[in-house]
């Protein structure tokens, strides 16, 4: 695997509360990236005023590339575009992202162009920017649910996102609540290695933890 040179990482923190496993995963992500020299834009979304995307599509028609609302929603594209790695952190919510994370992810629309094109057998929106971002998604589920239906849907959700976001490298991990600090760190480091964060790769040692499915 080719290692990523340290760059800029945008961490979209979709935690709704201070659940411990997500807190540990957050710390492990920040530590793993920072140790490798990455600049981490750590964005705690629950503290940010971001209006729901209304699907007005003015970011395609009136102010191309810019959300029409001048709140945190406009900052999503601004912070997403220059990053080299985008990280989602979320409780798995019915197999998807928390509403805190989704309020930001919905504002990635201006990163795309409105125009449709067939690609790999399906219709996709064209990309507005040439620069691509690796994608790492970490979710948590209740204990014993790492292979349950919501975790399985979650992996499919992330995979479908990659069809449209087109990250060169991506990884998704599901952690069970109650996982201890050492296991969370091992799992997060393994995931970081999958997207080429080389200090994390070196730290993985024996390989992936079983809590990452």
């Amino acid at each position, binding site marked *: 695997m080719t290692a990523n040179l340290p760059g800029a990482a945008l961490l979209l923190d979709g935690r709704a509360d201070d659940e411990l496993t997500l807190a540990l995963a957050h710390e492990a992500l920040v530590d793993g990236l920072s140790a490798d020299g990455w600049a981490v834009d750590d964005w705690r979304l629950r503290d940010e005023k971001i209006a729901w995307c209304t699907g007005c599509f003015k970011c395609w028609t009136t*102010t191309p590339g810019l959300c029409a609302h001048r709140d945190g929603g406009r900052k999503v*594209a*601004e912070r997403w*575009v220059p990053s080299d790695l985008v990280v989602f952190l979320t409780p798995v919510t*019915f197999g998807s992202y928390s*509403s805190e994370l989704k309020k930001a992810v919905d504002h990635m629309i201006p990163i795309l162009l409105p125009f*449709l094109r*067939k690609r790999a057998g399906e219709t996709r929106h064209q990309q507005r920017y040439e620069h691509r971002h690796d994608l790492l998604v970490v979710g948590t589920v209740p204990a014993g649910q790492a292979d349950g239906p919501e975790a399985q849907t979650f992996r*499919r959700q992330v995979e479908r*996102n990659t069809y449209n976001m087109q990250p060169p490298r991506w990884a998704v991990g599901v952690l069970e609540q109650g996982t201890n600090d050492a296991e969370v760190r091992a799992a997060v480091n393994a995931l970081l290695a999958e997207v080429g964060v080389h200090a994390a790769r070196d730290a993985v040692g024996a390989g992936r933890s079983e809590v990452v499915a």
Partner: protein
Amino acid sequence: MKTPQTALLLVGSPKPGESSSESLGAYLLEGLEKHDVTTQTLHVTKAVRSNEAVEELLAAVASADLVVLSFPLYVDCLPGPVIRALELIAARRAAENGTADATAGPVFVAICQSGFPEADHSAVAIEICRNFARSARLKWAGGLVMPEGGMLNGQPMSKMKGRMRSAAGALDLAADALATGRLVPDEAVRLMAKPAFPPFAYRFTANWGWRSQIKKQGEGASVDARPFA
């Protein structure tokens, strides 16, 4: 599944005005009303705006025999405010009916429309709805996916019935089934997923439409502007 006396439509489009999600949901409600089902409509974005509105939403769900969620696909998923509403509904039901049997709760059905010509884009969104139903102890009655939602463009189905023949047929079948205590039939799912136009024609028309809108509304900005490059 019991025969519903009341149905609640949750319109999941965050758009303030007319929406294709509401058109589809309203058409399904019309079908239910023919079977004497009493209907109510709430807009999800308004329903999660204040504590008072949230309580109204939760009370409406609690008193409905059938809950219909109609939403647009947003980034391969449900829109943010819809997820917020589902989080709130699931949390309230968990608090109040911790051990309740799913068959005792309201019936839940989902309609997802997307701006793509392939129905597969929405498959995960429907899975998410099914997972929600399990989590909130609602009886899952099925999900309908309509591609090419852009063709409907928020207009009432009655005005578009020619072009929306498949979708209208699907919703008619679904309404008849749900009103008589049955699950959404496979034939309705199949009909709903059928694109009204060939995909290449839809892409051509959609791209032409976007160019036309940008020309009218673009204030001279370049369509492929890269403000953060």
